[in-house]
């Protein structure tokens, strides 16, 4: 369909106040937090399920691509409209529809900002557990579409473990319910496969989330190391000892320095690594567990341990961790972050190899990682304008993906495949595995109109 006609038809459907179509707007919605850029043909900001349904039906009837988008903080090109089409931006659907405390559920529209919800729940003494580092700006819809993680996922699971129901718009505009406030609804777990589907299967217009009472006690420890291996081995030893803390987060020297320069949270800039360990739960026995953990740290040559004395000290530590990407981002014009994940016991050797890869391609790599999950975040620093450097960045990123696959891990732990990691899918899946996934795509979206070209490589054919 001709672009001008598409835009005027969409204006008729949702009103001109909810349609953007200037060159400047196209520029604003051409990117996410990856390096990929491509403009939509039209931008719609619906305010209701009915509007989403109308737009999707219109797109379906006219065979126009549809790309759903939240805050655009995703890291692998997932929300970039690489083949044009209509970008449906969910940020105006940002109402918390129901706080059902007695049933421990909340119902939200997809554009609700994650931290806003958490702050509101905190007033009632409840928690929504997933805590992606970008929670200050990310939306619940985006978190679910990417199946976002975060430090506390070690103990509490990722976003899809906390989304129990949804209202979704199917690729033909039909509105259906999946799951509910109740657990164990009969039928295929369609909601389960929707998590991390990157907007390729359906568009969520309401989500029912699990909330839980705040933990009675929290203990946060900052452990400082002179060697990154010692930090990694501490992680393996803690889990091996049968202790599963709420978080086990690590960062390397380059990251520590960047964080300290940006936020002044008191991290020692000469440390090779810091490990943030947090325990939560009942207060009983927590002191004893803490002592056991600290003994393990000492066995692994910890240089210094700081136990947060109060909420303010805890917040300071977490401000440093959650601001790490932003801080590292100040070091060079660009960074590319991988999120390959390995079995946690193989983290130290994987890390050593990541350092080698950095040396081989002459690229600085800062490392922040969810150590307890085996989830790496090597941030490769560079300048996009230097074409030679850019090529080396992509080569290094691909090599890190391969490394994670070889270690028995996977190419993406929480940022998604999007477009950026499509070429890595064959490292971990056979053509038959991918053919099986394609059947799911075809069942949900027979015309391939929802976020085309993402997540599943096009060329793979079943043997």
């Amino acid at each position, binding site marked *: 369909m001709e672009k001008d006609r598409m835009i005027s038809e969409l204006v008729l459907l949702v009103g001109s106040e909810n349609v953007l179509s200037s060159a400047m707007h196209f520029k604003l919605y051409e990117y996410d937090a990856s390096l990929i850029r491509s403009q939509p043909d039209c931008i719609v900001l619906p305010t209701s399920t009915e509007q989403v349904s109308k737009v999707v039906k219109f797109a379906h009837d006219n065979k126009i691509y549809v790309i759903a988008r939240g805050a655009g903080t995703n890291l692998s090109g997932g929300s970039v409209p690489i083949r044009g089409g209509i970008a449906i931006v969910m940020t105006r659907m940002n109402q918390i529809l129901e706080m059902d405390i007695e049933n421990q559920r909340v119902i939200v529209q997809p554009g609700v900002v994650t931290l806003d919800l958490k702050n509101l729940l905190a007033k009632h003494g409840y928690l929504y557990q997933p805590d992606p580092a970008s929670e200050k700006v990310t939306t619940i819809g985006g978190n679910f579409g990417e199946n976002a993680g975060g430090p506390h996922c070690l103990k509490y699971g990722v976003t899809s473990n906390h989304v129990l129901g949804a209202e979704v718009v199917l690729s033909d505009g039909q509105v259906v319910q999946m799951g509910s406030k109740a657990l164990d609804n009969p039928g295929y777990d369609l909601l389960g*496969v929707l998590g991390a589907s990157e907007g390729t299967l359906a568009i969520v217009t309401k989500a029912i989330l699990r909330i839980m009472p705040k933990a009675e006690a929290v203990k946060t420890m900052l452990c400082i190391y002179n060697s990154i291996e010692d930090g990694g081995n501490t992680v393996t030893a803690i*889990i091996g*000892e049968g202790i599963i803390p709420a978080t086990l987060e690590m960062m390397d020297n380059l990251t520590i320095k960047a964080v300290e320069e940006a936020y002044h949270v008191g991290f020692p800039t000469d440390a090779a690594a810091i490990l943030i360990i947090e325990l939560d739960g009942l207060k009983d026995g927590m002191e004893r567990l803490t002592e056991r953990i600290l003994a393990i740290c000492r066995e692994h040559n910890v240089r210094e341990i700081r136990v947060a004395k109060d909420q303010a000290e805890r917040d300071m530590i977490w401000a440093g961790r959650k601001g790490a990407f932003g801080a590292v981002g100040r070091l060079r014009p660009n960074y590319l972050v991988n999120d390959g994940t390995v079995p946690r016991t193989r983290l130290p050797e994987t890390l050593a190899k990541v350092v080698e890869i950095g040396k081989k391609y002459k690229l600085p790599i800062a490392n922040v990682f969810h150590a307890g999950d085996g989830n790496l975040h090597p941030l490769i620093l560079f300048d996009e304008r230097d074409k030679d450097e850019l090529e080396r960045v992509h080569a290094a990123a691909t090599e890190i993906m391969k490394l994670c696959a070889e270690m028995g891990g996977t190419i993406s732990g929480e940022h998604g495949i999007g477009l950026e990691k499509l070429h890595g899918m064959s490292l971990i899946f056979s053509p038959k595995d991918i053919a099986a996934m394609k059947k799911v795509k075809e069942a949900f979206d027979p015309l391939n109109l929802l976020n085309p070209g993402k997540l599943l490589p096009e060329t793979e054919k079943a043997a």
Partner: protein
Amino acid sequence: MSNVNQLASALKEIVGEANVIQDPDRMKAYAVDGMTPKAVVNPGSVVELSKLLAYANSEKLAVVPRGNGTKMAQGGIPRKLDVVLSLLRINRITEHDVPNLSLSVEAGMTLAAVQEKLAGTGKGSFLPLDPPYTDKATIGGIIATNGSGPRRYLYNTARDLLLGLKAVFPNGDIVAFGGKTVKNVSGYDMTKLMIGSWGALGVITEITTKLLPLPEASATLMVSFEDLGKAGSLTRKVLHSSLLPSAMELMDGKAASQLGEEGKYLVAFSLEGVGEAVERQVAEIGEMGKKEGGIDAKVLKGREDRIFWMRVRDFALASKSHVILKSNFVISKQADILGNYENWAQAAGIDCAFIGHAGNGILTTYIPENGVAKTDPLVDLIGKFTAEAVKNDGNLVAESCPTELKAKIDVWGGPRTDVVVMRRLKEKVDPVGVLNPGRFVGGL
């Protein structure tokens, strides 16, 4: 398939003569809703299983996968049944990564055997699933039917535990999804899709799961009540506290007495974790129970503690239940719905026992054989139960049901709007209708 002998020789070609059962007497044990299969096959490897499904697909045969058969009375009446496919010979632990706390195990191994192995290795770990039929239930059957038990209150269910799985699709494709990392967003989360899919999309052959370290200490606390409202109030107070029991079951007096316990209503808590926390919770919840008007409290430890929970899980066996109904609904309504169910069952003159996961909004109704003599009032009662659950955001599934009753109710409960996608998915993955035709939601 024109000829039963032709079928048998084709199956024997794939799995060997000794692994095909055709004797009509022996096959009776494998009947589904009164339909006897033409053959039972026991593949010894995933490759054999793949060949069997590819053959069934090309010959348009209907295949029912089976572990130890504890769930065979659940599901719709099959549209067709040619071959029962046993997973019992595909039963090894393929990888136990002790320091990584992960396990890969094949479908035919029983959960009991898995737990025994895990408890005895290193510092000891466990797979935190406790579905019914403790001794018999196989890993494949548990995952395919999304089995769970009382301890899901703390440990959640398979969708929260599994890291990956392997399956064979109806076209014979051997596929692997997920992996062994605790985080993974590479490709669609096919693992979740396969959990609870009732062998109607593919046959699960192996799973990879997280494990947890064995808890340092455990105990059971039971508080009995005369009044259901007060029992419900205790469960709600615990639910909204920061206390962390691993199970919180609310049952009626009939269920309690069959478990050898007293009281008109009984709330049972399982407490696991570090010793200090177990002790404190026993004391604190005991106090809360007293305050709510509990008339008696009892603590079990050690062997007694373990056996009690096994008997709760396996209640269907000991009570010789003929009809088992699982209702789900919003968590705050546990006691209200139990009260309504009790009243309606009494009015209908149907003998029911009730046990519910009070922290999860799940209530199971057990009806013994003599309760089923009167089919019409039972059909009405199930209709009422279902409507009540649906009104409270849930549904009702018949977990065990005689064939004649299946014809009169929807064993998968009230309709859902997302069946449209389920149907398209089934048609894409299994266009011939090889796997469990007619047994799953929406007659899929």
